[in-house]
């Protein structure tokens, strides 16, 4: 399906063949990486989001409805309603008729402009009982679902470049986000500890095995822990920890022998460790299942029961309920058969015993294989299920209410009531995505910051956001473990791309080839397990399970079978997977420490494709690559033919993966497709990252997202509240494969500046840059800044509307000169501070009451002027004026202003190696140094930037770029790139010899002449092109000063911040300096006179504040004096007074009479 919209990608594929002819020989060792573009062609960069959402629409949604299929009434037992199907249609406008098959013309861009939600109707088919007949209805809308862009229901799906252009959509834009109320929202990938898996932990000497069970109905955590050598089961539902033997007995394993075998097998060490547990139970004299249930039942927390029902407790019943459906819920109990669950708990005990015996067997919580990534689809399914249940409850309550009435005039038609509630689901989904706070009452889940506004600062920043993973747990934990780089994230998560500071290491990014799995059905896998000769675990005894050489087979953490030939089982299972009999995302691996074969089919595992190696030879051969080049094979064919397969973290760590074909050895199982794919999309922009100090790459990852450049092909028609665009962006001279793959060269953010690394003028210290004025004149670093102003014509409480009154237009007024006849400012007009945007008026009376209006008064509404105006100190040009109407039918006037800015002193620039700097000087071209050829640098960079930063990659970029300029070709600086010629040690040698050919020094150094004196600069200067990014931090947006200005209402101190024209604070430390120096009068001036000086009357008698020369307390004016104090102090006194704290001021003569003598 994806294939035919790949004109762009096809063109992109070409340079990957090193400009080779089709007939040229293919070298598998070098060209195998061609699989990568093929992978991205099929999967796309952010495919995980779209896959997850598609899975939600196709499968999850239907399962949710199936689980909540029937609604019955408590009042009338005969009434029922059943959902037979649910579908999500394609996006429509709210007011459009639902056409199940026809299309709507709504586009995502329209939603962005009109502040609408890009959503599609959710329709259900129902069957219900009306009176005595059963009615079937189809296509009933129960709400609207926000639709992820480029998902299966999106209008953009399968469109080619020109069709997308017609829809004002960018073909490079990856999709994967939602548009809610006009805002682009991304649901970030959430990282969590895996569900339904036993994790053995050990802290503060307590060793415990825990499992978070999660099913659609319930989420709970169960612990098996060891306290004073005794083992207990801990769960929220239990008032106290229950001894393990009692739990197992309650589950029907009454024989101590059996318990011991299930828990410890035949192993004497474990048996000895466990024995003490039996003693404990003996004391309590619990032998039978009944006794055990009684014991547990008395310790189950009381659940709230509906009022009016029987309040007595049946302990046994409660214990059975708790054990079967609350403790370890994900292991189902069918027909009172507790055995699978007992085996599960026994297995947990075994793990605890093993961990005590050998502390190495404690699990690592930070291991990526123990984590699961939650994507948009899963988040939405949680939300939808909650909303759907609430919807059904509301519906039921309404139906009950009607049915309660004794004499109804007409038959109850459930359909009428069903339609009424559709708003709940719609607004619930909207609100969650718009605010980012997920609250699911069933799971007591209250999470904020799930969704974020998609950053459109540059193309990479948007892309970076879509691959971002945020860690849900342990944000406050002071330990470094979760933040550290994990060896197991190799190839899955980018090692460079993480923010600095607070979030460091907790926010991660996906690597280039990572895929996140969706849920696969367990049943076919289970069948295959038994086909492969494994024995059912419920038929085996503990001794059989744990005997030497026996391996337990787990599916998603639950033991289901045993085998004596794990290796054979493994290869057999893999064969089935490579044949396509099982989904390619099912993983299988052996854990020899646990003597277990784990099979995982669950969702949220990270995985990546690798080439299969068999008999020491790569399965991908020349022939395959050739047919891929000819377009006869795509990545899916590689998968289905068993040439390439996906490995998740656990399976990856059970494999022997060769980095290059030459490294293949006898035991090698897989071959890496391309080493640079361990980096993510953002880190992939860096040329020669493997030559840089690692933190520099991390810094660049943060800065690449702030670079000004092109945003998308639709940037001209967008109306973002803030948009930065570069006037002449250039594609980098030194690019990487990743740059081509993510199409950064189509939407670049930066320019190739010719840089001289030398000291010049002293205005370049501390990383400052010297810019060539002529270069700036010619457009270097020039950018446009678009700002949006909204003028909503809102509806007041009394129903009156704001208006644009064009009738006020008076062209003789200077203020109205820039307005058009419609009362709005004209496009293309230059605006300065104070210029009016629109002749807006608001009604004088907005109070809801109409009673106040005197009888006979005219019904015309009185208006007052509320003209919005341009606020910024620096002028701008009106770029666009748009009138939009949102879904709630409110007219919104959007005015886009544009500024074109050239670089100025203090603007921030950065290369791609974490080397940022501000402009320190803009020098005349005549003053700049130049080479014999007259070539003059655009930027002079201080060489002190290099020694401590060790950004060798930047130097290599310069040399590569210089040779590229000379040969007229773009050069590659891909990470871990190997030279094509095996005789050459590094790629740089090639660039050096190329430079020599063109009469330059091989190290990129040039002889420069000083522009001021004309003398030769005594040393050679490293000169050449480096790609520079202009960052969004510009002086114009930051510079601020004030003499006098607004003050805050409460404290009467100057306001804070540039936006409020605030004062510049003399802070605590500055104050300390002045105190230390003894500049008392300066302090007095700064802290009081220039801030919140206030004069008030103080009564010297009582020390309280009086008023206009009168003391209310003393009821006299005798002792009242004028006093100057900070208003904040006066406020404090009064606030204390309001809390019944008396603050009295003691007044002393400033120049006491005694001393005057």
């Amino acid at each position: 399906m994806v294939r035919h919209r790949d004109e762009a990608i096809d063109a992109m594929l070409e340079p990957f063949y090193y400009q080779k002819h089709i007939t040229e020989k293919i070298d598998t060792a070098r060209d195998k990486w061609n699989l990568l573009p093929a992978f991205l062609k099929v999967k796309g960069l952010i495919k995980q989001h779209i896959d997850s959402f598609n899975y939600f629409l196709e499968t999850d949604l239907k399962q949710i409805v199936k689980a909540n299929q029937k609604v019955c009434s408590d009042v009338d037992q005969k009434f029922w309603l059943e959902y037979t199907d649910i579908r999500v249609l394609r996006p429509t406008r709210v007011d459009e008729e639902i056409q199940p098959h026809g299309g709507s013309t709504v586009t995502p861009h329209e939603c962005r402009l009109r502040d609408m939600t890009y959503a599609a109707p959710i329709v259900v088919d129902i069957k219900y009982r009306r009176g005595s007949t059963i009615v079937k209805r189809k296509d009933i809308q129960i709400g609207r679902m926000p639709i992820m862009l480029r998902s299966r229901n999106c209008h953009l799906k399968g469109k080619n470049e020109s069709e997308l252009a017609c829809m004002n959509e960018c073909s490079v834009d990856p999709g994967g986000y939602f548009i809610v109320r006009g805002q682009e929202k991304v649901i970030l990938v959430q990282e969590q500890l895996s569900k339904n898996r036993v994790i053995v932990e050990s802290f503060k000497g307590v060793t415990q095995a825990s499992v978070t069970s999660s099913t659609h109905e319930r989420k709970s955590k169960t612990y098996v822990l060891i306290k004073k050598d005794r083992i207990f089961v801990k769960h929220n539902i239990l008032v106290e920890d229950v001894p393990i033997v009692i739990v197992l007995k309650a589950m029907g394993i009454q024989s101590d022998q059996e318990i011991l075998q299930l828990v410890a097998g035949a192993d004497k060490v474990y048996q000895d460790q466990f024995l003490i547990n039996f003693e404990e139970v003996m004391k309590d004299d619990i032998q039978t299942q009944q006794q055990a249930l009684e014991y547990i039942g008395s310790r189950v927390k009381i659940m709230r029961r509906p009022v009016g029902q029987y309040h007595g407790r049946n302990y046994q019943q409660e214990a059975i309920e708790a054990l079967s459906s609350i403790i370890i819920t994900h292991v189902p109990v069918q027909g009172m058969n507790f055995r699978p669950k007992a085996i599960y708990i026994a297995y947990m005990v075994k793990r605890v015993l093993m961990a005590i015996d050998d502390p190495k067997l404690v699990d690592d919580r930070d291991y990526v294989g123990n984590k699961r990534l939650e994507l948009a689809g899963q988040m939405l399914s949680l939300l939808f299920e909650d909303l759907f249940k609430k919807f059904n409850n509301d519906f039921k309550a309404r139906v009950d209410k009607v049915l309660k009435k004794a004499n109804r005039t007409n038959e109850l038609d459930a359909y009428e009531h069903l339609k009424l509630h559709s708003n709940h689901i719609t607004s619930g989904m909207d609100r969650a995505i718009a605010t980012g706070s997920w609250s699911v009452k069933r799971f007591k889940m209250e999470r904020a910051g799930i969704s974020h506004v998609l950053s459109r600062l540059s193309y990479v920043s948007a892309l970076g956001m879509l691959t971002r993973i945020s860690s849900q747990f342990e944000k406050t934990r002071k330990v470094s473990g979760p933040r550290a780089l994990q060896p197991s994230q190799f190839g899955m998560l980018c090692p460079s791309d993480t923010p600095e500071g607070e979030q460091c290491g907790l926010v991660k990014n996906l690597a280039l080839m990572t895929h996140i799995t969706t849920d696969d059905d367990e049943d076919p896998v289970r069948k295959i397990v038994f086909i492969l000769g494994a024995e059912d675990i419920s038929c085996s005894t503990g001794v059989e399970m744990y005997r030497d050489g026996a391996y337990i087979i787990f599916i998603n953490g639950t033991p289901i079978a045993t085998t004596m030939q794990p290796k054979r089982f493994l290869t057999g299972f893999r064969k089935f997977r490579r044949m396509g009999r099982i989904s390619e995302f099912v993983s299988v691996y052996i854990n020899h420490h646990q003597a277990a074969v784990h099979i995982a089919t669950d969702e949220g595992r990270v995985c990546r494709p690798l080439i299969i190696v068999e008999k020491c030879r790569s399965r991908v051969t020349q022939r395959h690559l050739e047919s891929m080049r000819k377009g006869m094979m795509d990545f899916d064919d590689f998968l289905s033919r068993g040439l390439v397969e996906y490995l998740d973290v656990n399976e990856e760590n059970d494999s022997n993966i060769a980095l290059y074909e030459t490294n293949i050895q006898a035991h090698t199982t897989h071959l890496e497709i391309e080493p640079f794919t361990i980096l993510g999309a953002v880190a992939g922009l860096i040329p020669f990252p493997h030559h840089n100090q690692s933190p520099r790459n991390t810094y660049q990852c943060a800065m690449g997202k702030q670079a000004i450049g092109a945003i998308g092909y639709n940037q001209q028609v967008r109306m973002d509240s803030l948009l930065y665009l570069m006037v002449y962006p250039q594609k980098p001279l030194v690019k990487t494969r990743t740059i081509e793959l993510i199409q950064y060269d189509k939407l670049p953010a930066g320019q190739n500046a010719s840089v001289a690394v030398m000291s010049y003028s002293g205005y370049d210290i501390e990383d400052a840059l010297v810019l060539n004025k002529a270069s700036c004149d010619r457009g270097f670093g020039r950018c446009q800044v678009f700002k949006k102003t909204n003028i909503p014509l809102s509806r007041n409480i009394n129903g009156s509307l704001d208006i644009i009154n064009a009738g006020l237009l008076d062209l003789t007024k200077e203020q109205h000169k820039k307005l058009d006849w419609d009362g709005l400012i004209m496009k293309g007009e230059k605006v300065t501070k104070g210029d009016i945007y629109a002749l807006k008026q608001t009604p004088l009376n907005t109070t809801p009451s109409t009673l106040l209006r005197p009888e006979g008064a005219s019904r015309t509404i009185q208006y007052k002027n509320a003209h919005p105006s341009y606020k910024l100190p620096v002028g701008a040009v009106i770029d666009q004026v748009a009138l939009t109407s949102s879904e709630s039918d409110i007219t919104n006037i959007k005015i886009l202003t544009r500024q074109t800015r050239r670089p100025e002193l203090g603007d921030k620039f950065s290369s791609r190696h974490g080397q940022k700097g501000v402009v320190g000087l803009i020098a005349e071209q005549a003053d700049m140094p130049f080479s014999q050829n007259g070539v003059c640098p655009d930027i002079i960079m201080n060489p002190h930037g290099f020694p401590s930063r060790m950004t060798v990659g930047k130097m290599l970029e310069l040399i590569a770029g210089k040779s590229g300029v000379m040969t007229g070709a773009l050069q590659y600086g891909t990470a871990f790139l190997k030279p094509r010629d095996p005789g050459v040690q590094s790629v740089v040698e090639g660039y050096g010899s190329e430079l020599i050919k063109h009469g330059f020094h091989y190290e990129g150094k040039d002889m420069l002449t000083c522009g001021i004196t004309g003398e030769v600069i005594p040393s050679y200067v490293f000169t050449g092109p480096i790609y520079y990014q202009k960052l969004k931090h510009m002086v114009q947006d930051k510079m601020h000063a004030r003499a006098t200005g607004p003050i805050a209402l409460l404290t009467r101190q100057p306001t804070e911040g540039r936006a409020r024209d605030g004062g510049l604070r003399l802070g605590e430390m500055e104050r300390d300096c002045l105190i230390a120096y003894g500049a008392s009068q300066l302090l007095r001036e700064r802290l009081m006179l220039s801030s919140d000086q206030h004069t008030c009357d103080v009564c010297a008698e009582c020390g309280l504040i009086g008023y206009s020369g009168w003391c209310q307390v003393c009821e006299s004016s005798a002792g009242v004096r004028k006093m100057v104090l900070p208003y904040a102090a006066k406020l404090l006194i009064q606030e204390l007074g309001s809390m019944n704290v008396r603050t009295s001021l003691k007044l002393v003569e400033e120049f006491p009479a005694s001393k005057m003598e």
Partner: protein
Amino acid sequence: MDYMDMDTGDNEPAINVRDSNDLNVNFILRNVDLSLANSLRRVVQSEVPTMAIDLVEIESNTSVLPDEFIAHRLGLIPLTSGNIEKVQYSRDCDCDDYCEKCSVTLSLDARCTDERSNMHLYSRDFMVSNRADLSVGNPVIRDPQGKGILIAKLRKGQEIKMKCIAKKGIAKEHAKWMPTAAVGFEYDPNNLLRHLDLWYEENAKEEWPVSENGKLEPTQEEQEVFDFDATPNRFYVNLETVGGVEADRCFQQGITVLQNKLADIISALSPELANNNPVDDYQPRSPGAGGDDYGNGTSYGGGFSTHGPGAQSSYGGQRTEYAGMTSYGGNY
């Protein structure tokens, strides 16, 4: 052009033109001080006046590019500025805004009506009018197709209609008035003066390619003894213009500008002349618009039409005229 070899050992400044065409002139400047040679380079780059579009009156712009974007592009289009002296600086002109004496009007009027393909708007599409001299203010077109520079692309229905006013100016104000592209400048290519510390990794000879000019001078091996007192006096200059002015003419104009600047200094410093132009009411004026006796080439001998002896005599002339008055020329 044929020049005799002036390398006869005398100390007169001389210029040896090695190669010349209308875009490029390559010459050796000899027997001048480094400071003078560099001053000439600087002046040629930043103070030789040319024409460039400075004002854009936009009547209609429905293209995808914003107004100031196009205006910036228009400004950078090189215009022919051969007879630039026939155009006045706008600020020196009598007119209020601009007139044909101080400006050239280039108008652009394009509308795309083609359904299938976009219209490309080139610099050849300018209508040039209102000018003092026909050779001034034409867009420079050098590509074989004769299209000039691409200004913008228009889609069906889009229109650009604007009046561009080109004015005279110098590159100090904005690089669009820069007459030159790259100005190559080199002396002592073999580092006989040791101005450069010749850094090398293993072998300087292998690592540092010898420049073309280096072949004309003795190598370090050939140099007998290092001369501590030696000063640079052969300058290999390669001057390339963007096409607005012929390369040799550009250099000559540079000499004129420099002369005028120096003359201004002299007049400001000499007491009797200073009276004519009191410092108190000194007002900024355009370079070259000397006003006094130091107008264009009056007291400096004839015009500067040749590279040869004529130019030299003007240097000599200065020396005699102002000898002793200022330090200028004293250490010459």
